[in-house]
């Protein structure tokens, strides 16, 4: 699987995962000049949640979530605030979650979903 298709497949997987757990997804691949938010959703507890998805085709190169460096975490914070400002929701309570997706053979995958990590 090419990296771009891998990333898209990972986001699809997490999209279905969220829907099955009562999330309402508001936005997918919201993009501005400084970056992109993979998923924005309203959680069952009615909180705005930003989700960063990391996908890998094996664990050979470490856990997918290890790829989120302090720098990337900081960029996610800024993007989340930008999304809130542009939707007139500045000041609302929000969460940032991370999801690591690992694709094993034959299209099967595992999701490691971590809530409120940032």
């Amino acid at each position: 699987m090419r990296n771009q298709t891998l990333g898209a497949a990972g986001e699809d997987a997490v999209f279905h995962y969220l829907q099955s757990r009562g999330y309402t997804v508001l936005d997918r691949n919201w993009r501005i000049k400084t970056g992109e938010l993979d998923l924005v959703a309203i959680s069952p507890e009615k909180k705005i949640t930003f989700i960063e998805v990391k996908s890998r085709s094996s664990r050979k190169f470490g856990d997918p979530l290890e790829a989120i460096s302090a720098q990337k975490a900081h960029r996610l914070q800024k993007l989340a605030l930008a999304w809130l400002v542009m939707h007139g929701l500045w000041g609302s309570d929000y969460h940032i979650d991370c999801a690591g997706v690992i694709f094993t053979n034959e299209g099967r995958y595992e999701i490691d979903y971590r809530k409120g990590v940032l």
Partner: protein
Amino acid sequence: MALSKVRSLALLGLVGHIVDVEVDISDGLPGYTLLGLPDAALSESRERVRSALVNSGLPWPNKKVTISLSPAWLPKSGSHFDLPIALGLLAAQGVITSEFPESLITMGELGLDGTLRFVRGVLPTLISALNFGATSAIVPTENFQEASAVPGLQIRSFTYLSEVVHFFQSGEVPMQELVHPAESPTHSLDLTDVVGQIAARRALEISAIGGHHLLLIGPPGTGKTMLAERIPTILPALTAQESLEVSAIHSVAGSLTSRGVLTRIPPFVAPHHTTTTTAMVGGGSHAVKPGAVSLAHAGVLFIDEAPECANGVLDSLRQPLESGSVTISRAVGTVTYPASFLLVLAANPCPCGKFNGRGRACTCSSLQIRNYLKKLSGPLLDRIDIRAFVEAPTRFEMAAAAAGESSELVKRRVSDARKIAAARFKDERWRINSQIPSSELRARYKAERDGMTLLHNELDSERLSARGFHKVLRVAWSIADAAGHIRPTKDDVEQAIVMREGAFL
């Protein structure tokens, strides 16, 4: 259980402080935070522990790992926290289910392949642990012999991290054999190698009897270094207590393996004359290491070419010479190491070294000759009890068939004299003549009447300082012990004065 606690110790000087390694694993992005003022070697533990776990087939948590080394205010250094950190991580993940008792001390560095590696300072660490109520310890196999020297601790040693884990899971311990060290290596040096030098030999013997500091002066190639190197061969063996102290110091310095654990042979330390003050007295920016004066504790500190030493290096010896210990203050804290040694200085008589006999071959100006030995400061020289002139052996001495006395013979005389002194001091705090306090010397350890008169005359004529007065009396006691006199005679005192002044100076 996502939280666990393993006990270890941090060493500051020779004193260990209890450190609890607490490991917490919580949800969140994978990360590793090490708290509690770690130094560079300790901060690098993450990479070592991670590789060691993975390569031992053990799980590494891809979660938020927080490790706290408490007490938090105590600066910690060294790689020996690798093992407790790894064990804490495994317990927090549930791989090891047993709790770690507070009486168990663990220490060891991890290799990337999961081997347990040698660490410094195990001996003093475990001695301190004993005072905190520890009953057992886990150490790397390479430290087993050293750790076994601590009485009253159950020592388990392992070669691999996986063996330690297996032990906690099943209680099984791999076979351990205490490898008995080869008998203490006998000295390869012997006083028979030294030709002639009757006066210098005598000076060495008296110095060894009472622990009196020595200055050897002589032209190059006459045997100053040979003589000094052979002093440990005539000193009595270390006591069990001294041997433990010496081993603890060498354990911290990392020189215990080459020296041998609990060796009874007095150490001989000969720093080069270009040495720095820090190397001499101890120090360093994060771990305060023992210097040459502490490595020579209970043994001999020999400084060859003493006048060539940098300014201040020799004078830094004055404090340990007086107190028998050094106290070093650094950012991490204040550390005291024992530093009670026999100081032996060697010097040439002049810069070209040939000012002996009639001094005909000497090319130095009279000013140079006068200034050369002045590089040894007055206060330092005042602390030297015996000055011995080492002459080039004569043709007659070189041809003499009979070899000089052996170290064994001299050592026996030294031991006998020390026994006499020890019997005299059996109710006192000190054991050898050089340690008699001045007040006690004047009150209870006087020489015979005419000997004291001689000493008082020297004092009145300002040929002796007050310190010199006491030093001469102490040397006189050693001379008396060697001769079997009950109290120093006038003759013994005279000899002590001549030895102190070294007639030629």
